[in-house]
């Protein structure tokens, strides 16, 4: 077809010579149409992943091109979902590439009325300072009945059902070592 185009670029001629006299098919294809390839084919790599929404655990394939996610769809090999996804799973690319995502730390000082910008390491230092202080300030070596409890009641946490096992493991490990016990997640809700 490329050949015929180079020889006969004029649509009417293509129409007359390509067997598409009414000019509704082969004769009217643009170069872009001829060269089209799906993003799933041209991707640099495919990461095998799992849908982040509910707990069915649908397998996903994440297609990456130039370090950008270009498509997320069901993994046909998965015995869980056989390649299928619900609307939420199908919107996974929308989730991770949304322009509404936060990409920098936002900070609201006490009594503040607006967000402020904060760089990541400064924010981490500030949080570490506060964790150390709150842990110390609300430390209980003994409880009100004089039982040894060695814990802090100053720090609480909620969340984990959307996180990875490895993350939850480190969270529980660190908080337990620090003596923080009010550690909870969606499973309680």
């Amino acid at each position, binding site marked *: 077809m490329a050949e015929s185009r180079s020889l006969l670029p004029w*649509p009417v001629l293509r129409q007359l010579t*390509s*067997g*598409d*006299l*009414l*000019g*509704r*098919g*082969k*004769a*009217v*294809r*643009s170069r*872009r*149409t001829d060269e*089209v*390839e*799906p*993003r*799933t*084919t041209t991707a640099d790599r495919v990461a095998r992943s799992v849908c982040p929404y509910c707990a069915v655990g649908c397998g996903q394939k994440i297609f990456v091109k130039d370090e950008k996610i270009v*498509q*997320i*769809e*069901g993994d*046909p090999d998965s015995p869980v*979902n056989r*390649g*299928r*996804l*619900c*609307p*939420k*799973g*199908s*919107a996974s*690319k*929308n989730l991770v590439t949304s322009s509404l995502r936060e990409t920098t730390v936002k900070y609201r000082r006490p009594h503040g009325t607006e967000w402020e910008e904060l760089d990541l390491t400064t924010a981490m230092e500030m949080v570490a300072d506060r964790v150390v202080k709150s842990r110390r300030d609300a430390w209980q070596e003994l409880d009100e009945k004089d039982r040894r409890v060695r814990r802090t009641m100053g720090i609480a946490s909620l969340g984990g059902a959307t996180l990875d096992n490895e993350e939850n493991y480190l969270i529980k490990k660190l908080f337990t070592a620090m003596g923080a016990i009010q550690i909870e997640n969606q499973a309680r809700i």
Partner: protein
Amino acid sequence: MIGRNSLFGPLDPAPDAGYTDAPKRKGFFTDTSVCIGCKACEVACKEWNDVPENLFEMLGTSYDNSHSLNANQWRHVAFIEKPASKPAVDLGMPSVGAPVSEVHEDDKPDFQWLMSSDVCKHCTHAACLDVCPTGSLFRSEFGTVVVQDDICNGCGYCVAACPYGVIDRRRGPEGDPKVGIAQKCTLCYDRLTDGQRPACAAACPTESIQYGDVEELRERANARVELLHERGVMDARLYGNDPEDGVGGTGAMFLLLDEPEVYGLPPDPVVTTKDLPRMFTRAGMAGTALLVGAALSFVRRRP
């Protein structure tokens, strides 16, 4: 070539459009009896084809907030709340869940919630394509009807021509590169070129949307309707499967559980260019007569 049925009647559209070794015609069979109205098809379509949002507005038409097929909505799931106590013929339009039923609750155990994912029909005789003056709309080797964004000039002839009201020019959102351009389902033409399934069919959790060779899908649809009839679902019927219908049969067939009108589908669509050959013949005759007259007058002028 121009075949006898190039504009009306049964036809295999790809060879008719000049493809000599075209693959088997591809299409959809949407079995609404297993549709759960999840809208995965709508989302998967938008994600793959970069179709922007349609509108953020609750319509109150049961769970349908997508309204209709349009330039920003290439798949559309209709929801029909159907109190079975009323005769089906009264349901001219999709029920919006609003009408207050006077029937006692016990008397209507067969309340039905019908859902159906609508899509471009990829007609055998596609009026949109027939009227497109730029060659933007074209018949692919898969027998499907596809807009070429790089050619469309937004004239809108196709919009009026479609008997299903599928194709539309994109109106927004502002900044979208395809605003003003005619848009509709491509049956994921790009994916098909590499042997992949259209995004909606790949996502559909219950295989309500099936993709494949139209001939085979037609057989599958017939078998399914037969099975449902055996199981006592006498309302099951096919839509778009008849090559003798007004558009020569469609590339997207449906198994419905009620009259097409209930789902917002035209009961007897006819390709708007059906009369073209007759018109062409007459116009041709008239034109020839004019030409002959002109020639004659020209001849007569010569001394």
